[in-house]
């Protein structure tokens, strides 16, 4: 136990030099945990929002359905099979019919996706109950982004046009009954939500759907011919990749931060070994072995990491907790990222993240602290006492 005691004594005795290194390293600690937490929070938020508003517990896609290919929509619908119908009746799934259409807001022409949804559904957080109107009107629901890009407001009437099952154009006037505020762009931009039964009737696609969203807790996923089940893992592929890309970009910053901190420690160690040769000679004269001196100097360097972790905890825990509770406000332009971020990101930290970062920084600090001490292995006591390097 003598070495840790001496190392700590030497480290604290070095005063401002120690604290400068510790502060730089603690800054690296806090920044890494914070940014990692930010990306973790972002990923968690996006996943949560899309599950709630779009994916549910997964989706059955009609075999021709491809959300990335609007031209395929013409054929991407079929009668809901009986096995899925029973899920729908048990409120364990909700069907959505997607067809291509056109709207004419303010005299302009704009292509849209017309999505039919059951106004009674409870699977998704889309406020479809606004479509549940007794009046003889054709209600429609749009998102805030769609409202902004088209200039539509609640109560506005607008003409929509589509092709029915016979490829014949048909059109109706719809009334905007609600503008929903959602963070999920993929249920908002370029889309108009209407009652499922009405659009099925108007398109001559009775009891047909393009996709069926199942509830989150659904245990058994039946195999259905002509329909393919897409798991949440599959549906979140793009989000995962995007967060991974953003997170990888942040790695550059970690490397710079860690590099700067390690440079400071390496420099301190090299300088320390150079300046403390006489001290090392004295330690040898008092009976300390070279191995013990190497351990002492390495531990002195490595303890920078431990002190930095303590200092980082002292100011980092309150700071990161504050961010986690208040969130990090995002500029409006972040909406263009195309993922459901919302107005704020709430960083999410885990014990694994903090522990992993701490262990990583401690290992790197120890290696960096050890490297310059290899010179001591060749140090002769007589040379050291004269202040020379062997």
């Amino acid at each position, binding site marked *: 136990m*003598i070495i840790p*005691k*001496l190392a700590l*004594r*030497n480290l*604290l*005795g*070095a005063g401002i030099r120690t604290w400068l290194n510790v502060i730089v390293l603690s800054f690296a600690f806090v920044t890494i945990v914070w940014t990692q937490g930010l990306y973790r929070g972002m990923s968690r938020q996006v996943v949560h929002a899309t599950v709630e508003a779009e994916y549910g517990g997964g989706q059955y896609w009609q075999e021709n359905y491809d959300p990335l290919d609007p031209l395929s929509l013409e054929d991407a619908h079929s009668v809901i099979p009986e096995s899925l119908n029973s899920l729908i009746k048990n409120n364990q799934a909700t069907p959505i019919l997607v067809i291509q259409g056109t709207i004419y807001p303010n005299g302009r022409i704009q292509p849209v996706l017309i999505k039919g949804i059951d106004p009674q559904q409870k699977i998704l957080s889309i406020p479809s109950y606004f479509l549940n109107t007794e009046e003889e009107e054709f209600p429609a629901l749009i998102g805030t982004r769609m409202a902004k890009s088209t200039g539509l407001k609640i109560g506005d009437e607008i003409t929509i046009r589509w092709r029915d099952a016979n490829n014949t154009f048909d059109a109706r006037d719809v009334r905007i009954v609600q503008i929903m505020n959602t963070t999920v762009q993929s249920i908002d931009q370029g889309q108009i939500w209407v009652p499922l039964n009405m659009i099925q009737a108007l398109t001559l696609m009775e009891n047909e759907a393009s996709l069926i969203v199942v509830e989150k807790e659904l245990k058994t996923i039946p195999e259905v011919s002509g329909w393919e089940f897409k798991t949440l893992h599959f549906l979140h592929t793009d989000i995962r990749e995007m967060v991974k890309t953003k997170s990888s970009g942040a790695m550059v910053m970690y490397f710079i931060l860690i590099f700067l901190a390690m440079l400071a420690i390496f420099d301190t160690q090299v300088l320390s070994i150079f300046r403390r040769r*006489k*001290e090392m*000679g*004295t330690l*040898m*004269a*008092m*009976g*300390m*072995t*070279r191995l013990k001196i190497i351990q002492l100097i390495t531990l002195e360097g490595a303890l920078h990491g431990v002190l930095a972790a303590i200092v980082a905890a002292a100011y980092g825990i309150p700071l990161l907790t504050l961010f986690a509770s208040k969130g990090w406000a995002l500029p409006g332009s972040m909406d263009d990222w195309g993922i459901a971020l919302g107005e704020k990101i709430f960083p999410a930290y885990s014990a694994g993240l903090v522990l992993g970062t701490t262990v990583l920084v401690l290992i790197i600090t120890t290696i960096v602290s050890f490297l310059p001490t290899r010179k001591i292995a060749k140090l*002769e*006591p*007589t040379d050291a*006492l004269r202040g020379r390097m062997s």
Partner: protein
Amino acid sequence: MDNSRVIETKDLVKIYVMGEYKIWALNKVNLNFRKAEFAGLVGPSGSGKTTLLNIVGSLDSPTEGSAIVLGEKIEDMTHKQAAALRNRHIGFIFQTFNLLPVYTVYENVEFPLLLMGLSHEERKKMTMDALDWVGLADRSKSKPAQLSGGQSQRVAIARAVVKNPAIILADEPTANLDAENSYHILDTMERLNKNLGTTFIFATHDEKVIRYLRRKITLIDGKVARDEEMTPQKPAGEKQ
């Protein structure tokens, strides 16, 4: 070996190789030191005083010949064994004090005991005793930078004697001190030599030190030129 002999050198040779040149720092030195001697190695610079002190202090090893310290052959020792010998049995006093700057006086003196693995209580008692011997118990919390040269050297003496070693090797211990402090230091070391039976060997060319010696060994060009018993002639008039 005679039991009272603490150090014995046989045809001790130390050669330094400087490029194409060989420098004979010690050339067949044969010397014995007994327990409780108060001896000095004197001679001009480059005569081999410090080299001899380093070898018998197990800080260096001979090129040829043998140095036996407390029954152990220095030339056969591993680095670890040499470190253990220094830790247990040999105290060093240096010209430039070599105190550890970030430690207090107490911690500096305590250091060899920490390496020996003694308990906190033992260390505390022995450290305070050593500081008492050199009259610095009241400065135990000071840092080396807050001490005068004389006080620093007394701390170095306390550090050397704290473990009650068999041998203390002092390399020019008074070179950085004024006359008053030099005599104070020498009185302290002489008292310790008499009270504890510690063998003191000095490397010096300071006349003040030479007057205290009971044995003077003159080295010239790495050889023992003279080895004479002395009667200490402490200059009462010069001392305070």
